């Protein structure tokens, strides 16, 4: 039987605020345990949570970024459950009336088409603390620094049909929240966390199958692997006469499998009710408009503009707009290159990206600055250097051995365009290889490459290839 995969994603975006959602404690990552957990985060009696203005602004930005409806009034609720890293015995979240309703994100599929993934809602909530399971004499250690950190949970509709689509959606969302400046996107530090609801159904069936919820999939690679494994597991289970159980499953990257964590049926009784400590959050149309006017250019708009303004293909545009910093780098380089858009794109997505990957660096850490890369492209375009020599210069730039023009000057890498000099060199090569010349003239066309190779070798790759070709052809006639 043909099976269809149905996926819905829940993403917890940690909002990039200085202080917590309901208290003035710091949210900085990596502090000594419990040094950033104040009386409100610890749930001491008599404390009053007060909402951070910035989280409201950030939620509105996300809402505008996904063309959603911003609720004029949203309500915080208590979600009740007991766990040692949740000091109050409840998590403050939004339940029946979230701040962001509806919206969508478009993803590009492999065949070049676009698919719209609907978003159900996005709501504000606080994070829990962290339990450390190393053995403290039969006890667990609790660090509450993370308790009260602001999260925006973004829930998609079950519109996703494969692990690849899930990754595409996540990458787009990841890019969007960084463009909006509402999240640092650091997945290793847990700033962008994903849970996936996965089910299967016979192709063409309109009913949803029983779903499992996958957790601990906090890298794009894990998301893809975990979903692929889970889909195969469910198909094998159903085809051998079994039934999928609704449960939460944990992905184990070392074993590349998911395993049951807890059964959902009992855990789901959270007894939500409106938090009496917090009043409804009211947002005015004016506030929304002000934020809308200050929104930066978003990835999709930039993608469109890059294709129109620079004549790039969809692949190059997608790579370049994947982060705002990379897009800015490209635009600065294009200016320095004298508007060599395609060649600059090739260098940014090719040589530069490869070097960054090799050393596991971000574009912001690149030792080659945008204006120098642009200059390098300019020197190729104006025939000062050949494309081959440019790679050598790029290496020197990477090792910070000076500017493009310095390196060309100092290392004597200028392309030879003086036709007299090229002619002399060609004459020398032809004189040194009389047999090959004879063979070429008797019809062995392939030998042309041999002469080009010899000339390039002799000149250290510095001859202008077009001029060389023309002269060689003329002399060999």
């Amino acid at each position, binding site marked *: 039987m043909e099976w269809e995969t149905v996926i819905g994603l829940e993403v917890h975006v940690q909002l990039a605020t200085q202080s917590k959602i309901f208290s003035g404690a710091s949210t900085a990552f990596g502090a000594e345990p419990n040094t950033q957990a104040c009386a409100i985060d610890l749930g001491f009696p008599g404390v009053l949570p007060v909402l951070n203005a910035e989280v409201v602004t950030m939620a509105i930005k996300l809402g505008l970024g996904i063309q959603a409806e911003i609720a004029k009034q949203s309500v915080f609720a208590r979600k009740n459950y007991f766990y040692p*890293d*949740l000091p109050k015995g409840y998590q403050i979240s939004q339940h029946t009336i979230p701040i962001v309703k509806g919206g969508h994100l478009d993803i590009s599929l492999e065949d070049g088409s676009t698919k719209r993934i609907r978003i159900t809602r996005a709501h504000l909530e606080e994070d829990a603390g962290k339990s450390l399971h190393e053995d403290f004499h039969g006890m667990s250690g609790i660090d509450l620094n993370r308790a009260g950190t602001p999260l925006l949970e973004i829930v998609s509709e079950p519109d996703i049909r494969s692990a690849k689509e899930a990754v595409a959606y996540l990458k787009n969302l990841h890019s969007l929240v960084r463009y909006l400046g509402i999240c640092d996107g650091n997945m290793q530090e847990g700033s962008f966390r994903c849970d996936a609801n996965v089910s299967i159904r016979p192709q063409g069936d309109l009913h949803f199958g029983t779903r499992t919820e996958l957790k*601990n999939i906090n890298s794009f690679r894990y998301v893809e692997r975990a979903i692929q494994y889970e889909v195969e597991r469910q198909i094998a289970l159903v085809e051998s006469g079994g039934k999928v159980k609704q449960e939460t499953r944990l992905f184990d990257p070392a074993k590349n499998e998911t395993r049951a964590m807890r059964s959902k049926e009992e855990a789901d009784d959270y007894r939500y009710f409106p938090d009496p400590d*917090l009043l409804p959050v009211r947002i005015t149309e004016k506030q929304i408009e002000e934020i809308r006017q200050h929104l930066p250019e978003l990835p999709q708009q930039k993608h469109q503009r890059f294709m129109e303004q620079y004549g790039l293909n969809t692949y190059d545009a997608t790579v370049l707009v994947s982060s705002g910093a990379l897009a800015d780098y490209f635009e600065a380089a294009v200016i320095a290159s004298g508007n060599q858009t395609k060649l600059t794109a090739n260098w940014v997505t090719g040589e530069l990206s490869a070097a960054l990957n090799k050393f596991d660096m971000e574009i912001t850490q690149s030792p080659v600055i945008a204006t120098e890369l642009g200059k390098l492209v300019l020197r190729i375009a104006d025939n000062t250097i050949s494309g081959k020599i440019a790679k050598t210069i790029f290496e020197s730039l990477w090792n910070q051995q000076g500017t493009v023009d310095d390196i060309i000057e100092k290392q004597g890498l200028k392309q030879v365009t003086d036709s007299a000099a090229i002619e002399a060199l060609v004459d020398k090569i032809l004189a040194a290889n009389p047999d090959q010349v004879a063979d070429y003239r008797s019809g062995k066309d392939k030998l042309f490459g041999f002469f080009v190779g010899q000339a390039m070798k002799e000149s250290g790759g510095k001859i202008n290839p077009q001029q060389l070709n023309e002269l060689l052809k003329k002399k060999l006639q």
Partner: protein
Amino acid sequence: MSLTADDVKKIAHLARLSLPEEEVALYMQQLSPILHFVKQMNQADTSQVEPLSNPLDLSQPLRPDKVTEPNQRTAFQAIAPQVEAGLYLVPQVMEGEDNYVE
């Protein structure tokens, strides 16, 4: 609408209250009238009424995003039953049951 003994036990479990077996019947008796009262309220026609999450007709005050809380770990941990290496110690959480925010 009356609660069963199992309902009462489940509610007690969710609230992590220990309920002696002999008291289950008593709570069934005391809690059921509360539900009757809720059922009675449910009969009121509220189709024209905006949901009310708070009786105060005010909106949530906001605070600027500034760090205002100093580190007071020493004071907080002085009243904790057990601490080590800056951590609060609690009875062991079962392995593999780490908490993930839902």
